[in-house]
């Protein structure tokens, strides 16, 4: 179990690094699960479980560093338990949820520490100690990654046998309930996405997308293709509107531009 624990610890570091550095999206459950699968020597399982995990967490996303649920850790641990205790995808999804909550708790603790460092950074600058400033920055980045490594390492080392026993104990009716829940949970993900995209005027587009798949059996690639065309149609009138406005009014006419801006918000 030591090697597996090291592998999951390393997966945590990679996922957390690729989530922040360049915002590469390594914390998306699909990718987090793929990385974990690769490190545990079962990449194909990692990829497949990743799809089930992504569906549950699809609507959760990090905005300005605030993560409502740590979907990256959910992806890692869901995949790890799917592989290590051969849990079904629906059970893996259920097991990932407590870890996704633990992740936000631990990150909150780290953020408190980072907040306490803000004044120290400032003091270093006030004292003209740029080297100390740089050193402190390196330390916090290192501590951040180390923290995730330890979480992955310890959880797998200490928790796997307990989880294995738990998974083997689950009766059929609960197993079925978990499968049903895993099928239903993507609805929450979709609802969360709608919250951030929704406006009354744009609501019909949701139903167009739904109908294209539900009634006409379209694929997502086909919907993306049509979506781009429809989006262009929807804004093209307004593009024309603002260029005309600019041509008619010279740039110095501040008031004219303002009223035009109001037009845009009012229409």
């Amino acid at each position, binding site marked *: 179990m030591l090697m597996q624990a090291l592998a999951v610890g390393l997966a945590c570091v990679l996922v957390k690094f690729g989530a922040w550095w360049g915002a590469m999206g390594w914390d998306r459950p*699909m990718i987090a699960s793929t990385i974990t699968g690769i490190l545990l020597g079962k990449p194909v399982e990692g*990829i497949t479980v990743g799809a089930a995990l992504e569906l549950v967490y699809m609507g959760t996303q990090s905005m*300005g560093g605030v993560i*409502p649920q740590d979907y990256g850790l959910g992806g890692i641990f869901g995949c790890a338990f799917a592989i290590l205790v051969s849990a079904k995808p629906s059970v893996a999804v259920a097991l990932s949820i407590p870890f996704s909550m633990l992740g936000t708790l631990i990150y909150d603790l780290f953020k408190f520490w980072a907040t306490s460092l803000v004044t120290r950074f400032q003091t270093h600058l006030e004292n003209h100690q740029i080297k100390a400033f740089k050193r402190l920055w390196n330390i916090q980045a290192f501590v951040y990654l180390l923290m995730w490594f330890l979480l992955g390492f310890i959880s797998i080392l200490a928790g796997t046998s307990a989880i294995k026993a738990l998974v083997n104990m689950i009766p059929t009716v609960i197993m079925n309930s978990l*499968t*049903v829940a895993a099928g239903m949970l993507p609805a929450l993900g979709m609802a969360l996405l709608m919250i951030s995209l929704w406006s009354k005027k744009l*609501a019909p*587009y949701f139903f167009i997308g739904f109908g294209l*798949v*539900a009634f006409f059996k379209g694929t997502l690639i086909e919907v993306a293709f049509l979506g781009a065309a429809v989006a262009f149609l929807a804004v093209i009138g307004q593009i024309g509107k603002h260029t005309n406005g600019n041509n008619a009014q010279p740039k110095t006419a501040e008031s004219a531009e303002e009223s035009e801006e109001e037009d845009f918000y009012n229409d």
Partner: protein
Amino acid sequence: MTDTTTTPTFLPDKKSEKRFYNSLFWRSQWLMFCTSYTKQQAVTFSWVMLPYLEKIYGKDTDEFYAAMLRHQDFFNTNVAVAPFVFGVVTSMEKENKENGVEAKSINALKSSLMGPLAGIGDSLLANGVRLIATGIAIGFFQQGSWLGPILFMLLLNIPNWGIKWLSGKYGYKLGNTFITDAMKSGTLNLITKAASIVGLMMVGAMSAQYVTFKTVLKIKSASQVVDIQKIFDMILPGLLPLLLVLGCFFYLRKKNKPVRVLLAVVVLAFVLTFLGITGAAK
């Protein structure tokens, strides 16, 4: 907007300018590290600016430290479009050194840029590009195909890194006039709107594709067995998933926390399965 006749001290030629764009691209990737509750990305904002401020004001000078302290102010924006702010701020710091722009205006500009840029970055990348990339790649993931992760990374990161590269370059070149013009003319809103439209269509499509919610209930009358799910399918294909998504959506809109909705869905799944209304698909 500058008409400097004095020899510039920072980025005097094309070659060093190119080196600056490169360096800014790589350094700005670290922006999320050391996020704090009080000032969000402020510490790392100054950390990214460090070498450029050193070049502009000279190492260990009072001016350098004053500039570093100035950038300890609250900062928070989307990582992909952040290089734009770094570009604008660097060009203004250079201005400040050469012609004495009021330092306060640099901070004012930062705080006016970060909101709209975060909005456009989040809607374009987090909602638009990410949803399209997820929608295209997830089918391959389900089949256990390597195409899944490869496609997702490319579809997500080519626009992400492309925007990052261009926004740094144009931020420095165009200075602070460009974004205010774009905001006034409504271009930013149009991009946000277009991204939201594609995003919503993808959400609708994925709701139909990936939400599984059907009943296994069969009602036995005198001579025949009525399959309730078949009736639902005749009324409207995907009716139950659609109702479930809309139900979650309106529950969330009432300011319920996502975790509470999650628990509600799990509880609902258990109750329905124990009652024999839903069950494992055969």
